[in-house]
């Protein structure tokens, strides 16, 4: 008689009722431009997503992972997109998707918390800047257009700050995420009682249903929800969606494919939901740092440095991969293990957003990333 689902839904409704709706009373907008930031929490593997198959060192260092390239979409002479992202591949063919590779924030250590803090605050080091760059972006927009929303129950760091921001939780909350379940397995490894109970719980769960399909549904629901929040003339102009499960220390092939499928599904649902407004929408997908180039002993990769980012939308000057490719040979790697960063994520962001919202690139960079020096916002990312 215990109904977990209805409990979860009730919890979500309670949150919405608690004030998110009332804070959604926005003024009428003058601009059509929308911006969506999809954060990949956990360090998504850029080399596994946008695969540098043309690099001579690639096949040897990635061995089994390289097999996925056979069915992926060939982007150019060097890169192939992971086969789990067919919709993004379609956007690439329509020149509405641009991949940026070997890109990184200024953060050079390998802690998720600190790395995400730098990615979200736009600081030079963790906890240096208190508010988020996405919140500061609001102060650059005309006052009556400065409306942002987090598609989550709580406010991510990137959106925190002095400008008021709404949050809206998805009405269908997921069951515990696969990544958390894997980590609980690790956590209980040394505890005989909990390990035995948990092993049984996981095997029961495995019998219970098609998780991949379930995950896809949730991702699509999130994409649709974001579209609904962005679509109305008086709706939000900026939205942020959080994704997880990218910290693939083990069994990366299956887990990365699952994560990319969800991401691809979410972006597609967002695009469909926005309809013609997609033409005025810019989507950024970025992660705190990349992963080791070499595969580790558990079929995964460990925390690394440079990663890949994505820009998608009707205005993106897509159909290309932007990279000053550093190479995968041992001598070319950062600290002999990671993809070497050759492009600054902050320059990508300030270049793309200034153009998208018709702002001055220098000023945009100075407001979004005040702690960083030698800014060079990249032009030509967005039409």
């Amino acid at each position, binding site marked *: 008689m*215990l*109904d*977990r689902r209805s*409990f*979860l839904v*009730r*919890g979500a409704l*309670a*949150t919405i009722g*608690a004030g998110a709706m009332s804070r959604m009373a926005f003024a009428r907008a003058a601009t059509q431009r929308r911006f969506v930031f999809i954060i990949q*929490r*956990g*360090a998504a593997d850029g080399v596994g997503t946008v695969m540098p198959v043309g690099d001579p060192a690639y096949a040897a260092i990635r061995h089994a992972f390289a097999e996925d390239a056979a069915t992926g979409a060939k982007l150019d002479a060097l890169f192939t997109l992971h086969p789990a992202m067919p919709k993004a591949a379609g956007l690439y063919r329509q020149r509405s998707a641009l991949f940026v590779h070997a890109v990184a924030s200024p953060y050079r250590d390998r*802690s*998720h*918390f600190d790395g*995400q803090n730098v990615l979200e605050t736009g600081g030079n080091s963790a906890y240096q800047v208190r508010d988020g760059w996405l919140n500061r972006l609001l102060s650059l927009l005309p006052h009556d257009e400065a409306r942002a929303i987090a598609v*989550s*129950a*709580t406010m991510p*760091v990137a959106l925190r700050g002095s400008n008021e921001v709404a949050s809206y939780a998805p009405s269908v*909350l997921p*069951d*515990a*995420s696969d*990544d*958390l*379940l894997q*980590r*609980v397995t*690790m*956590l*209980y*490894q*040394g*505890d005989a*009682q*909990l390990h035995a*109970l*948990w092993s*049984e*719980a996981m095997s*029961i*769960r495995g019998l219970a249903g098609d998780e991949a399909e379930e995950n896809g549904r949730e991702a699509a629901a999130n994409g649709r929800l974001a579209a609904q929040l962005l679509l109305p003339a008086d709706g939000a102009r900026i939205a942020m969606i959080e994704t*997880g*499960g*990218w*910290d693939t*220390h083990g069994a990366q092939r299956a887990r990365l494919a699952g994560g990319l499928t969800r991401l691809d599904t979410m972006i597609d649902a967002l695009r469909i939901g926005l309809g013609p407004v997609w033409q005025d929408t810019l989507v950024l997908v970025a992660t705190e740092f990349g992963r080791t180039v070499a595969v580790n002993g558990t079929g995964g990769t460990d925390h690394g440095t440079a990663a890949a980012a994505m820009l998608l939308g009707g205005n993106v000057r897509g159909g290309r991969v932007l990279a000053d490719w550093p190479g995968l040979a041992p001598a070319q790697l950062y600290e002999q293990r990671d993809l070497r960063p050759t492009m600054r994520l902050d320059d990508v962001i300030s270049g793309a957003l200034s153009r998208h919202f018709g702002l001055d690139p220098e000023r945009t960079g100075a407001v979004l990333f005040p702690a960083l020096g030698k800014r060079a916002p990249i032009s030509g990312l967005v039409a």
Partner: protein
Amino acid sequence: MDERSIALNRFGLGASPDDRDGDPTAGASRNWVTAQIAAFQPNPRAIAGVADTSTILRDIADYQAQARLVRKSKPGPRGNDADQTQPGDDGEDVAAIALRRRARGGLRLHYVEAVNARVAAALATPTPFAERLVHFWSNHFAVSAEKLPVVALAGAFEFEAIRPNVMGRFVDMLKAVERHPAMLLYLDQADSIGPGSAFGQRPRVAARQRGINENLAREILELHTLGVRTGYDQADVTEFARALTGWTVPGIGRRIGARAVTGGFEFLPDLHEPGTRTILGQTYPQDGEAQAEAVLEALARHPATARHIAAKLARHFAGDDPPPAMVRRLEAAFLRSGGDLPTVYRAIIASPEAWSAEPVKFRTPWEWSIAVLRGLSANLSDSGSAVGLQEQLGQRVWRPGQPSGFDDVAATWAGPDALMRRVEAAERLATRSRPVDARDLASRLFPGSVSAATAEALKRAESPGQALALLLVAPEMMRR
């Protein structure tokens, strides 16, 4: 476990990051626990506004009056009890059903309000050890919120019969509990009629052969005082049930002996079986209410009761198989002090078995959820719905489904599905939590007691939210 962690988690309800840092010097943790005996507030702000027994009884009487009207207006067989009539029975008028549904919903709101108050009190309390004892005694003297009147009254039972007596004498708690309408209705005492009483002698009553209901008498002996198989027999149960006749809640249920609601317990002399009773070889010549009261007093000081209570308390603080030496110590403290509960609590605190460094208990769903919410400094709205959360976790508040209460052993609670539910709830609560660094929080919740495996898992989590979820299901959080 460090002594500070034992004090916070095994004796208390789990640490809150707002707590002051525990004093690591020897004895400080024991003093912190002991001081709560004197500091306990039976009626804290969290429960002060909740409807009291007499208000709820009037609501129940209103509801039952409406139900009677509906039944009268309808042809066909009559139910005995309002609750047993199914809505939608032939002939029931739609408006009447709707009216009754609303009234039923109103009664259920008393339950929701009381659960919320119980959770709020557990989150806000400065005396978590004392609050744990409230929960312990409420479960020892369990009612189960299944019959509608008990659903509405379960919270008032704990707040009015248990809380004021937690730092008093066992006998006073016993007398308050057995008089409370929730208990009288739950264990059918309100339906019991002495066959030789004035009411029982009425021709119509005698013809229907209604009489004694032994339920309460049996459970007092078996569960509340002596314990099962401690030497009483069926004759003792029946005699005790006779002594208890007349203890009732006027105007509720079948309204035996009195139709008007008085707002609480009454002794109705017309229902009382006259005569001297003999229970466990002792005779009780008292007349009226004093007779059963004298039985309760004798039961409260019986050595079997002392042993029974000692074993349950030792199980709660020192492990599923209570250490015999500790049981003997608590039993002696109980007997020596005439059932003075603080004396027994001090004996628990003084028992080395209750301070063993290894965790001794697997947290029940209730304990886990309260520890988690306290750890997150959460309030009620953060939990979504307190009633829903407890349901999801598999332990509905005040609804053990049996008069023996919820089990206090790991075997009942440590199951695969229960664990999965905790993981799911943890992720949800972590998602809703204000931003917290789980690595710092861990050392505040389990001072000096965070395992290397847990610390490593928190450090490697892919996001602060995930780290928090992992902390909430870490082995340290699952046990106390």
